[in-house]
């Protein structure tokens, strides 16, 4: 593998750490001048500052020639060593260059794990004590214990707090990155699946429709039936693909509502009308009980049409030939209430709490070999909830079922501001 040498002036976090390193030096020099107790220094402050500045410049170049200095722990350990030398040469206990350790440990929190930061803090503590003891400046035992005790505690607290804080931030950033990656993966899935499934469906569906349109009346009955069978199954496949994609989008929170003020009675009439062919096919009656004069409600019509269509399709599916279905609308104090009732076989009590769950297929559906993978009611629930409403079912076995959902009259946060429409 071709490993490139790092740039002379690093970018990102390394640049911040580099600035921090120089700030520490400036601060240490400033403190050395302010703190009169550093008068008994071993060497003059200027040669010392010059030496540290030279080290800081050299450390920029060294990683280009010494690959082991590209390891963050190694370079920080070298910093600790040089800081110790500065403390030793600058008067031990009294040296303001102690501040260098603090900056090195804050830098360590950015680059190392919590354990490595603490290891570095211990190394700094050990070397600091050694530098103080080796320095000719002497203090009383109490004073020495007080100074070293305070400073070492400070070192450990800085190392622990900064590394824990940074570790937490790192985790949060990783979590956010993971969530973003997951959302991107889901979006890619939707996009790929849309393309890979809907494109062939387009070709099949249009071809079948064209075949049906051009089929003459005297065409072979068997052939016509076969074409109709293909058309039915294409429709079923299309519905399944749409449901799967809708579920993926709902779970990835990618469904964006476009609400518009809607006269629900008119809207329901129109949706119900589109079910006429299915109702005629099963000789079923659809009764509309729609209260007039209700206030308009803000809904995404495409999504609410899907909710009503899912409920009506289920009602038609489970209601016997010649049966009766009722679509009702009335106003409540703060919501519109829409219900779809059928006189089908009903839903067993033990199944009712589960029917709005994803992929839940009821006993009745399995028994009748009905089509469906248990997504319709789940999608209906999620879409109603997105509108701030609730969906529920009431049913007694053998006495049909009534699905009811509410749409709040009050506009919710997701609905557009006045100047949007």
């Amino acid at each position, binding site marked *: 593998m071709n490993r490139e040498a790092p740039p002379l002036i690093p970018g990102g976090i390394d640049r911040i750490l580099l600035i921090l390193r120089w700030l520490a030096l400036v601060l240490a020099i400033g403190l050395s001048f302010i703190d009169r107790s550093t008068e008994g220094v071993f060497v003059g402050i200027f040669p010392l500052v010059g030496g540290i500045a030279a080290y800081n410049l050299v450390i920029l170049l060294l990683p280009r020639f010494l690959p082991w200095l590209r390891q963050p722990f190694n370079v920080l350990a070298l910093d600790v060593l040089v800081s110790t030398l500065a403390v030793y040469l600058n008067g031990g206990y009294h040296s303001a260059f102690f501040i260098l350790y603090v900056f090195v440990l804050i830098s360590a929190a950015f680059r190392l794990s919590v354990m490595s930061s603490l290891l570095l803090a211990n190394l700094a503590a050990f070397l600091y004590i050694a530098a103080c003891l080796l320095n000719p400046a002497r203090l009383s035992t109490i004073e020495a214990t007080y100074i070293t005790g305070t400073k070492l505690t400070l070192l450990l607290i800085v190392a622990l707090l900064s590394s824990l804080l940074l570790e937490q931030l790192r985790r949060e950033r990783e979590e956010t990155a993971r969530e973003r990656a997951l959302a991107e993966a889901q979006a890619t899935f939707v996009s790929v699946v849309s393309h890979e499934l809907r494109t062939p469906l387009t070709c099949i569906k249009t071809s079948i429709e*064209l075949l049906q349109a051009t089929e003459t009346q005297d065409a072979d009955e068997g052939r016509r039936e076969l074409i109709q069978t293909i058309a039915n199954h294409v429709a079923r496949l*299309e519905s399944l693909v749409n449901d799967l994609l809708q579920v993926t*989008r709902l779970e990835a929170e990618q469904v964006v509502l476009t609400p*518009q003020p809607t006269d629900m009675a008119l809207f329901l009439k129109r949706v119900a009308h589109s079910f006429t062919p299915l109702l005629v096919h099963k000789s079923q009656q659809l009764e509309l009980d729609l209260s007039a004069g209700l206030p*308009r409600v*803000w809904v995404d019509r*495409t999504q609410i049409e899907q909710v009503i269509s899912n409920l009506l399709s289920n009602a038609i599916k489970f209601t016997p030939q010649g049966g009766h279905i009722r679509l009702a609308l009335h106003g409540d104090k703060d919501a519109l209430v829409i219900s779809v009732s059928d006189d089908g076989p009903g839903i067993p009590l033990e199944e009712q709490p589960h029917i709005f769950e994803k992929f839940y297929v009821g006993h009745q559906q399995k028994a009748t070999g009905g089509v469906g993978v248990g997504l319709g009611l789940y999608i209906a629930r999620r879409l109603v909830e997105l509108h701030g409403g609730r969906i529920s079912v009431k049913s007694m076995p053998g006495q049909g079922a009534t699905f009811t959902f509410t749409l709040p009259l009050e506009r919710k946060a997701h609905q557009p501001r*006045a100047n949007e*429409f």
Partner: protein
Amino acid sequence: MKLLIVDEEPDVVKVVRAAFRAQEPNWEVLAASSGPEALQIIESEQPDLVLLDVVLPGMDGFSVLRELRRFSDVPVIMLTVRDDEVSKVTGLELGADDYITKPFGYLELVARVRAVLRRAEGLPLSYEEPFVCGDVRVDFSTRQVTVKGQAVELTNTEYRLLYHLVRNAGRPMSHEALLARVWGHEYTDEINYLKVYISRLRAKLEPDPQHPQYILTEYGFGYRFRAP
């Protein structure tokens, strides 16, 4: 009539061709399988309408549309597997005239193409007094719109929308009424179409589109053009 279908799937091109052969046998259907090829054909053949897929190799459909709008106002219908609102709004904002999701019914496809072509023909010229409100002037006989005396370029759909608004100036018009009159009765739920075109009109006519003075929002109902 000459159509161009831009889709990388040869079979989609084949079925679209068959659909138009069945419904409009005299129409010519050209095909392109990539963005650059489509742009070249649009320049050389000047089709009356373009059916444009979003997923194309290399240059995607939105980029093709953006590029195309620099030199042509040919009606464009996006024909794509993407049915999310964001994609629809993106297409409309870039200047698409309609948006059809695959898989489509071929009768719906042909009906929508006819509707867009009808809209593109523009409104007949009408010899009546120009409408003047503040700095905005609409001359129905020349279809010229000016703001502070400066001519404003409007697409056919934008002009239609403005026409219906100013002809009813001072009266609120519902979303449904505007959608039905400008796009057609089958579009009354397509609030995004109206939203996008109202913001385009505001951007061209209003001194500050964020605080409109001419095209006013009738909250929860529709829009009203200020009375002169």
